[in-house]
């Protein structure tokens, strides 16, 4: 579902990613870990075409993202669910409207919008907070609205860039377990994080990055500790 072929990315001569090769299969759940500056966010931005690689190819669902024209980028993003560390919610809209926004923008009729939004809010267990504005919700609840928005279109791929970065450990675990449940429905989930506890608790595939390279890629791994991977 996600494939990177010899991908490198540099900014003004500084190499952020170096010859990265990676494959994440359909329905797979994987962590992308590494310290700050390891290249996790750059890799994520390549996947939702916020950036283009300096060299190499990025594929999602067989589509080479390098070859997408500007008007095709929104079409790609509709097939992705993207979850952010800072939630990126529309502050002047309720939880319901945040989730419904993308569907309305695509001209889907209100009856269908209601059905899909209620279903997404049900998955994240937020039906009772649908009329609340983002600033009336806790961090965990805001992130769950972000997840509901990401899944409301039924995307085959979910990309979560440090989704627990602003959350306490208990809420973080709750959020990642929610993403794991969504993955069980056949959605490919890739989470970038540097949260050791979550990675070690979940024991799923761990792709570890260091200095722009994939250092290790282990199926049921732990977070790297002092230069080593616990297996």
């Amino acid at each position, binding site marked *: 579902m996600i494939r990177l072929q010899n991908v490198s990315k540099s900014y003004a001569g500084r190499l952020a990613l170096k010859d990265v090769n990676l494959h994440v299969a359909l329905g797979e759940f994987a962590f992308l870990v590494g310290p700050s500056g390891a290249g996790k966010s750059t890799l994520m931005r390549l996947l939702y075409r916020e950036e283009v690689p300096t060299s190499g190819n990025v594929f999602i669902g067989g589509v080479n993202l390098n070859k997408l024209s500007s008007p095709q980028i*929104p079409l*790609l993003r*509709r097939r992705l669910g993207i979850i952010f560390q800072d939630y990126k919610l529309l502050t002047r809209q309720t939880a319901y409207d945040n989730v419904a*926004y993308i569907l309305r*923008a695509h001209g889907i*009729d209100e009856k269908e919008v209601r059905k899909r939004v209620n279903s997404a809010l049900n998955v994240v267990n937020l039906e009772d907070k649908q009329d609340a504005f983002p600033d009336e919700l806790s961090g965990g609840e805001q992130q769950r609205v972000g997840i509901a928005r990401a899944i409301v*279109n039924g995307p085959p791929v979910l990309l979560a860039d440090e989704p627990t970065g602003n959350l306490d450990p208990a809420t973080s675990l709750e959020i990642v377990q929610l993403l794991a449940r969504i993955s069980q429905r056949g959605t490919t989930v890739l989470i970038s994080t540097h949260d050791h506890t979550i990675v070690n608790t979940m024991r799923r595939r761990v792709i570890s990055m260091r200095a722009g390279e994939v250092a290790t890629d282990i199926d049921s791994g732990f977070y790297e500790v002092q230069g080593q991977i616990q297996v």
Partner: protein
Amino acid sequence: MRHLRVFWRICVETMLGIKHSGWSNWLVVSILAIALTIFGSVLQLTMTLKDVVNYFGSQMVISAFLKDNFEPGKVAQEISQFVEVRLVEVIDKNKSWGEMQKTMKVASIPNPLPNTLHIRVAKPEQVEKLAPKLQLLSGVEAVRYPMMVARRLNEVRHFFEIAGVAVTAVLAFATLIVIGNTIHLVIQARHKEIEILSLMGVGHFYIKCPFVLQGAFYGAVSALFAAVVIIGVELYVIKPYVSNELVSFASMMPTGFGYNLVETFLVMLALGMAVGAGGGAWASGRYIKI
């Protein structure tokens, strides 16, 4: 149906954008309304003066003196075939001579006057084009017309046309910059929202279109304000004071001229909306990087 729903959502986004713009709405509408008021006034003045010039031009007469052996009615018919000609009047030489004898006590000599045709044209600029053509007709001995007056009227009319276009272009450009900058401020204020929409896969058209419509909305509202000012000035200042004073001052001055106020408003509305939408399109194209 789906496209209609998308259009409706774009309209909703436009109204939300206007609502969120707050006081800056009034700022841009005020500036644009002032620009459109100046434009509308210049348009009114230009068109009125152009009408007056045309009126005087159409009053100008080309005199064609005919050869003795030609029938004036036939020559008049031939001349009336020219597209420029509005009216041809035959001045019979015997009638003219009789009147001259009555008023001027001239001696009893044979009638020396030729048959004459008085030709009026539709537009003043046609005088100089038509006169040489008349001269070529076999029945015409000589042609006379007030050449300098015709030329000066053409120059004045031409000046008003150029001045009107120049003032409109300058005001339109200034307004475009004002609207563009206002929309730029709106885009800056909503940049986070725009980034979110882009990352969610909302299309470029859907994101940018509300800013174009917002600009067009500013244009429409400003045209309305400008029209109120112009109509107010027309009804309460120009008509009761200026027009009456002018007519009593110069009784030969024609009345009832000027661009229709509805036409002026429609031109202002179209220009305001076009400039507004243009400013919105320019700003959204330049400042929204998706």
